[in-house]
């Protein structure tokens, strides 16, 4: 179709990155495991030493998820001197979990996010909100990080990574700045339609045409997304502590509004929450490895 012939800048394209936790040496580790989370929009890989985060990488999921899985894993290993065969057990998770060729088994992102959240935020976590590329998950878990119940909402991309990408393009603001921008309004405008990303986009466009400033439109959009997310949370039932994972967890515009609506302050992460799924997978990998070799 003709409609994208002129795209000056790809506002939706978020930066890819990798990192190795300094001051750690994998040679001293007893068990080296990895988790690969091939999501619908982003893919993440985590290497854990004896169940502690060691290195990780985050990149876009490409058109071929198997290739992406290999790429993201290798990138996480880069600079560490680790090789794929040094990994004693790998677990795949996320939408593309079945396409992680070097994974011993797969576990759903539901269990992995709860597990990862438990590691990132500690045993007080009872409700995990994961806002992923194209679905939202509300997960209830116990002090051990075990999933008690969950709800997913993926029939509509509104309030998800993909929805935000579409919106970033629409108003011409880089996706990682969207949240900040949306919070820069004096007073909160009424939210746009929260039922569907298409309606939301159409309404946002109409508002821009009416001469609303970008900030205000962004606020209306984020407010609607927060509404949706809160609907999902109330359906599963929110219990403290509430935490958020997934890429969108970094969007303050959504998180702060969710907080306002619920009157509950989500815990602040000390580790990049986008890693929760892959991290959880790496932790499952360790447990499964120990089981395999009879350590438990």
């Amino acid at each position, binding site marked *: *179709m003709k*409609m*994208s012939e002129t795209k000056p800048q790809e506002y939706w394209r978020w930066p890819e990155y990798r990192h190795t936790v300094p001051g750690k040496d994998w040679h001293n580790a007893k068990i080296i495991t990895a988790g690969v989370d091939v999501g619908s929009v982003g893919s993440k890989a985590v290497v854990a030493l004896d169940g502690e985060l060691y290195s990780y990488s985050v990149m876009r999921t490409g058109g071929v998820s198997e290739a992406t899985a290999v790429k993201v894993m290798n990138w996480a290993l880069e600079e560490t001197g680790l090789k794929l065969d040094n990994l004693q057990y790998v677990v795949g998770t996320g939408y593309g979990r079945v*396409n992680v060729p070097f994974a011993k088994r797969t576990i759903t992102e539901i269990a992995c996010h709860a597990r990862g959240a438990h590691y990132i935020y500690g045993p007080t976590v009872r409700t995990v909100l994961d806002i992923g590329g194209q679905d939202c998950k509300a997960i209830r878990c116990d002090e051990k990080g075990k999933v008690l119940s969950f709800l997913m909402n993926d029939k*509509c991309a509104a309030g998800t990574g993909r929805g935000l990408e*579409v919106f970033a393009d629409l108003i011409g603001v880089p996706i990682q700045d969207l949240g900040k921008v949306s919070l820069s309004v004096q007073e909160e405008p009424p939210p746009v339609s929260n039922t569907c*990303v298409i309606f939301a*986009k*159409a309404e946002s466009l109409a508002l821009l*045409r009416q001469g609303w400033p970008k900030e205000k439109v962004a606020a209306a959009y984020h407010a609607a997304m927060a509404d949706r997310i809160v609907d999902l949370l109330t359906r599963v039932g929110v219990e403290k502590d509430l935490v958020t994972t997934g890429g969108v967890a970094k969007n303050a515009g959504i998180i702060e509004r969710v907080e306002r609506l619920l009157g509950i302050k989500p815990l602040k992460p000390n580790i990049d929450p986008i890693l929760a799924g892959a991290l959880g997978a790496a932790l499952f990998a360790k447990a499964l490895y120990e089981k395999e070799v009879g350590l438990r």
Partner: protein
Amino acid sequence: MITAGIDVGAKFVKVVILKDGKVLERAKALVGFDVLKSASDLFESTIKKTGLSRNDIKRIAATGMGRETVHGKPPVNAEEVISEVMADAKGAFHLIPNVKTVIDVGAEEGRGIKVGPNGTVRDFVINERCAAGAGTFVEAMARALEIKVEDMGSLALKSTQIIPMNAQCCVFAESEVVTLIHSKVSKEDISRAIHDAIASRIGSMVLRVGVEKDVVLIGGVALNPGFLPPLKRELNSDIIVPEYPEYVSALGAAVIASEHKE
């Protein structure tokens, strides 16, 4: 007599200058955040090309979702506004006098029109809210597939297998597409599934008004080669795509302006 039609759409603004039934000039531009400015700029650059001035143009009719923004506002100063449906029918009739059914598929909206004598509207259907956003859908999918939107159509033509997909809601279809990606279905087949899905959605909508030959497909999507074959299948009918299909609304507006009686 010289008239003009201006189509202020969701994504593009288009201008057609008409002299005694012949197109003098046509041009389009992306709509910026300031619709009036985008429309005005395009209009002025276009008449400049023809060497005419606003006063040489007897009458201007505006159509498209933003038509009111140029209604009576200089420099365009459109004398009248008309709905897309009327403009589509008249424009298609001007190009293909035997037209009975017009299908217009744009970025956000799809229309089916039953055309009466002299390009009048007998009945029409416009997609309801839940079937909106064909354009948005394809863009997002192209991104997920990591291919250019404009390559999708030709890719679809290379497909070897059919995958039924429910696209009443295109967002719903989107998550089906992501699933296909992860289950290693080829990009060709996915592209086809996407086009089939949109075609079946548009097709089922058009069936409401009934399909009578000649069937004419206009609007931006008409330029997409991957969309035509499945739509023909859905309607099981030949479909004519005129030259410059995306300008037909603007053309229709210009024609209606020229038919105006004092």
